[in-house]
């Protein structure tokens, strides 16, 4: 009886493994959407400048660079005190700035003294790192942007230096997105969760 049942499941699986027919225009539709989403030349150029790439140097030059960097880190650490650590420092989470016809204007802030670029991505901008760059305040490493958002919950994250996705360190709750990356959540019309 059990063998007969297992045979039934095998038969079901075999039938379901048969290929299914797709619209012949499927590939063309996908590629048309991909081309619309493709980054422009200036974004490719920005990526070239902001992406890390391997650099080979001799041990002697490497030692000299390490010594120079150590000096920069000491000076930099003094400059950002009393913040607790280099990198990302929590500040108050995304905050309501004003209300407009387009929604409520929310200010997103990230302290990232070592970042070259910071962008905001979320369900409100199709997770496109090219659409909502943050501006840095002079010398402080504090990045911010104001954005009108519709009322309701929104998932978001920051993209640092074009490729590192970070949840908002000041938002107490994060959820995991489709790609396994943690996102933060803000509820416009309520408080950040």
């Amino acid at each position, binding site marked *: 009886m059990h063998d007969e*049942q297992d045979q*039934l*499941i095998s038969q*079901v*699986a075999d*039938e*379901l*493994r*048969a*290929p*299914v*027919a*797709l*619209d012949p225009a*499927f*590939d063309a*539709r*996908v*590629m048309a*959407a*991909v*081309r619309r*989403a*493709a*980054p422009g030349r200036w974004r*490719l150029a920005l990526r070239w400048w902001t992406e890390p790439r391997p650099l080979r140097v001799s041990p002697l030059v490497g030692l000299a660079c390490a010594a120079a960097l150590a000096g920069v880190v000491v000076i930099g650490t003094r400059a950002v005190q009393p913040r607790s650590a280099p990198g990302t420092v929590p500040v108050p989470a995304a905050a309501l700035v004003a209300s407009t016809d387009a929604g409520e204007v929310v200010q997103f802030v990230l302290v990232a003294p070592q970042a070259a670029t910071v962008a905001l991505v979320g369900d409100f901008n*199709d*997770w*496109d790192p090219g659409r909502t760059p943050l501006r840095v305040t002079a010398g402080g490493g504090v990045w911010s942007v104001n954005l009108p958002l519709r009322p309701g919950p929104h998932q978001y994250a920051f993209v640092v230096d*074009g*490729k590192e*996705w970070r949840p908002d360190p000041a938002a107490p709750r994060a959820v*995991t997105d*489709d*790609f*396994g*990356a943690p996102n933060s959540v803000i509820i416009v019309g309520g408080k950040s969760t």
Partner: protein
Amino acid sequence: MTDRSDAALISQVLNGNAEAYGALVARYRERYARFAVHMLGEREDAEEALQDAFVRAYRSLAQCADPARFDAWLFRILANRCRTAGARRARRARTFIRDEAALGEASAEHPAERREWREEIHRALERLEPDQREAFLLKHVEDLSYEEMSALTGAGISALKMRVKRACERLRVLLGEVQHA
């Protein structure tokens, strides 16, 4: 010889050659279309979910931590899209109608009895809970290990084993009724 591995194609795409993505679409569309059609039941919905998964993967390609495992990463995105689409459809309270066009080519090759048997299988599949249907398809049709299923769905291995077990039991009951009718 040109390297056409997933990792090499992804590298080309990230360096600005969006057309290289077409090779990845062609490579994975059929396998993942099968999963999407069985999950959603209608070819139109399945193609929409699959297209959405491909475009979302393209937009986030720099996030793909292991380009050599692009297929598993894409599958995870698609499984999430199918869940979202399934939930949206449930909210719309639409009838779950199997798409004859999606199955027509294959079933036309078989005699009438076999076609009826296929229809019964799809009808039974539609009557499973979505998480049980997903677990059954991943285990028995896509031949994933429980570890791979866990990584893909985020569910624990024990929970997945239970879903597969219940799906098999339900299918045995539903299809046993047909066989003994």
